[in-house]
């Protein structure tokens, strides 16, 4: 790690101002950013912590309608508190990393980072969530733009995420054996107007909607409706832990399991 300055503002305005400085970067739970700094792969001059800003924290919602989560809310809090509104989202949060990661890592950091194997992006995309920033609101469909790439502008801060609550939903994750991130993770959300299926961990393009499955499941929300189906292997990630073919296959399996588990 190289030397850096550290600022911990108490207001969003303070954070925005601090992030305007040269080589400043937002720090939330630090579970992604700090390891990369330790390895000297990332060297911001100033870290601007978001975890001291009260308005970026917490879970609030209206049963059956929507739940909003502050960007700096750790996974453990989402796991404990979001279940009253959106059980599938709480389940997903409770399955991220280990207790240390869940107590530090935050939803805002996860979405901003958009790791192709991260869990939250699939929930946001499948739910049709709205990502709120200090300057605008961005639909999840527009937010994720490929591996580690989002619609965020430099210095733009995610303040919260608002999830419409589906009738039924579930997240099925197949763990990469070492990191326990998703080797393939599928979030299925059934709304009155149709089913949305978002896939993480599998594609070289990052999180994506599997529209073929959405169409089949919108017609018949049951695992049988997508029996034997899998997305094409082309464009899937191939690495130590699985070939593109295997990942494509897993997406089919995990989608069926998510549908079966949806509640």
């Amino acid at each position, binding site marked *: 790690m190289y030397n850096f300055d550290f600022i911990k503002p108490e207001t969003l305005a303070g954070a925005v101002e601090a992030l305007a400085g040269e080589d400043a970067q937002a720090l939330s739970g630090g579970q992604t950013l700090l390891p990369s700094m330790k390895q000297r792969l990332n060297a911001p001059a100033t870290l601007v912590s978001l975890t001291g800003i009260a308005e970026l924290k917490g879970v609030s919602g209206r049963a059956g309608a929507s739940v909003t989560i502050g960007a700096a809310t750790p996974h453990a809090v989402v796991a404990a508190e979001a279940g009253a509104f959106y059980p599938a989202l709480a389940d997903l949060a409770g399955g991220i990393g280990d207790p240390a990661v869940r107590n530090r890592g935050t939803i805002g950091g996860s979405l901003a980072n958009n790791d192709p194997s991260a869990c939250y992006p699939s929930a946001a995309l499948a739910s049709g969530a709205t990502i709120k920033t200090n300057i605008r609101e961005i639909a999840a469909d527009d937010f994720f733009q490929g591996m580690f790439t989002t619609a965020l502008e430099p210095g733009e801060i995610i303040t919260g995420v608002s999830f419409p609550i589906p009738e039924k939903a579930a997240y099925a994750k197949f763990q990469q054996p*070492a990191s326990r991130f998703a080797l393939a993770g599928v979030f299925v959300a059934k709304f009155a107007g149709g089913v949305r299926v978002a896939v993480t961990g599998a594609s070289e393009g990052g999180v994506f909607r599997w529209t073929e499955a959405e169409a089949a499941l919108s017609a018949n929300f049951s695992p049988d409706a997508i029996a034997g189906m899998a997305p094409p292997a082309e464009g899937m990630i191939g690495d130590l832990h699985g070939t593109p073919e295997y990942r494509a296959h897993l997406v089919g399996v995990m989608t069926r399991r998510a549908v079966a588990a949806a509640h």
Partner: protein
Amino acid sequence: MPKDSGIGASSKRREDVRFLTGKGRYMDDMNRPGQAYAYLLRSPVAHGRITALDTREAEAAPGVIKVMTSADTAGIGGLPCGWQIHSRDGAPMHEPKHPVLAEGKVHHVGDPVAMVIAETAAQARDAAEMIVMDIEELPPVVNMKDAVAAGSPLVFDEIGTNVCFDWTFGTPQAETDAVFAAAAHVTTLDLVNQRLVANPMEPRVALGEYDPITELHSLFTTSQNPQLIRLLLSAFVLGIPEQRVRVMAPDVGGGFGSKIFHYNEEVLVVLASKALKRPVKWTSDRSEAFLSDRQGRDHVTRIEVAMDKDGHFLAMRTDTLANLGGYLSTLGPAIPTILHGTLMAGNYKTPKVTVNVKGVFTNTIPVDAYRGAGRPEATYQLERLVDKAAREMGLDPVEIRRRNFIQPDQFPYATPVGLAYDIGNYDATMDKLVEVADFAGFEARKAESAARGKLRGLGVSSYIEACGIAPSAAAGALGGRAGGWESANVRVNAAGGVTVWTGTHSHGQGHETTFAQIVADMLGLPENMIDIVHGDSASGPLGLGTYGSRSLAVGGSAIVRATEKVIAKAKKIAAHLLEAAEEDITFDKGTFTVAGTDKAIDFGTVALTAYVPHNFPHETLEPGLEEQAFYDPANFTFPAGAYACEVEVDPETGKVSVCSFAAADDFGNIINPMVVSGQVHGGIGQGIGQALMENCVYDENGQLLSGSFMDYAMPRADDVPNYVVDHSCITPCTHNPLGVKGCGEAGAIGSPPAVVNAVIDALQRGGYSHVTHIDMPVSPSRVWAAMQAK
């Protein structure tokens, strides 16, 4: 009746008090006054020629004291190799120099090129980035099959080949081949024993401190064998008298073999401290450990067995390519030969066994011992092969093993591959396994799994290992350059307490507890009167350290011999005090008695008198009560046993879950059953890790793909089941005073084939009869791919 103290008691591990309360004395917490910090600049490429190395800017950087390159190590030797293997043509193995800093060429990613010493660790690291290092990249040699092909690029230009040795062992090839030609059935298996990273919880640390007045070179290091490091560092690398080097290894947070070897950094911090006249410390981080700790396994093998029509083994032959990496490590060439080829008979009475091993240099991190070291590679091949043979012959896997087991009345048994097993009873451990693993209930469990959509399989393995390393004569005959003895010092203090120094080292094995149990039992004292001291070459006796499940069998035997000498001396003192003849004195439960009388004196009084010898006849009775013993074992010890694993395979994803694991081991006599169970648990955990998860992988450029825990899959608590561990089958070792065999590696040796056999069994029973083998790690993606490949 379980005992509550002494030999056979499950005494609680006294060292755990400090480990569990954060009071362990680990190296990273140790700092010396005036200490400077070192950082190693390592090669970013696998193979290349260093064309420029400009350290001027780094030397001028803030806090920098010195930058060392190979120019600073010109006067010293390379890192020595402890074994010399001879090729089939009688020629000694190629033994190119292993410099402590790269000389001219880099041989693997992570190869140390320069060391920066600065006031702080961060300054040293910052300055290392200012070193201008130009490397002209050469085509890397990564894959062993490519490395041995004609025209391959060379890791060492000067030897003209990547084959370090071409070794053959056991029955002459032609004799074995003749049996194969006439056999009723031959089973063949090609397999890979993948490369592993040991990953002890504590990364390595080395701290050098030179005293210009006494000329003492002190090295504090994370080592399994401080005395051995002292020998190698003084005699082979620095060329100075051994007593001017002191090596200390305080609490060490796990080794698993990877902390046996003499490492570059140990030499460098000592040299630097001498040059700078101040202590110099280097601490590895986890990423650096992946690039610099010696790695394990990495064999590619074809193994075959010839059988008669009833499944009796007539002959066995193997061809193995064994990866040595980019340099010869301390024991590198011994692992795939002496510790592997000699075990290829297994528990079986196969009359002819031929083993061929080529040791191969590649542009990868050097390979050396990892828990089991050679013996897991042998056991895995054999036990996978035997399972495949059983299937091909239509025999039950337990039955084919029983048909071929060496029988109890055949001991001592000379194998075709150089060993003489002293004792064992392989049917007994198999019987015990069948009982404790509840084979009878398997069908019901399988039906229950099937009801949940899972395929269940049962896998068996039997194993034997050669431990208690090593009889010096055997080691010498097989190419070892050191002996295999241990020594111990037992000092009875005036107030009756006993201090025992051992040349072995404890880094998780619990010696401080178990060795005290032995001495307490022999002297009839409470265990808490006995202290075991290890880890400092200055205060400890000579010794060779801890590896190869040798500490109890060899080091413990030395302690027994020294304690026997103490008792003999104490009897002399007691005879004097009781005014009786020495031969009339008996010693039992801490009391000396004149036979046939009620005249007696207790141990404490004898001890006190030894140091308060007011009326000793000094011509015939020396004061003091302290003895030393050296013990050189007459033979290896041969722990053996049988393991069973049950797995469930998820047919949709290929994921394997271990449902249960049972072990029936014959370790000879047991000193502390709880400690033994713990050793077996840890070994099985690592074996399951190898079987299902761990994999050290390089890409075609020699870059390490699995260089962190994000990609190198270590087993965690929820990856392993509750183990059933039994060590009630006991055939005491015939040649050491305790009748013990060693238990440190067994778990890691016997378990991988049991796990893989279980996976194959599950697939076979589940209708995937085309799947006869899957290489480790048997990961979900590999299982799924094998299921698809109809």
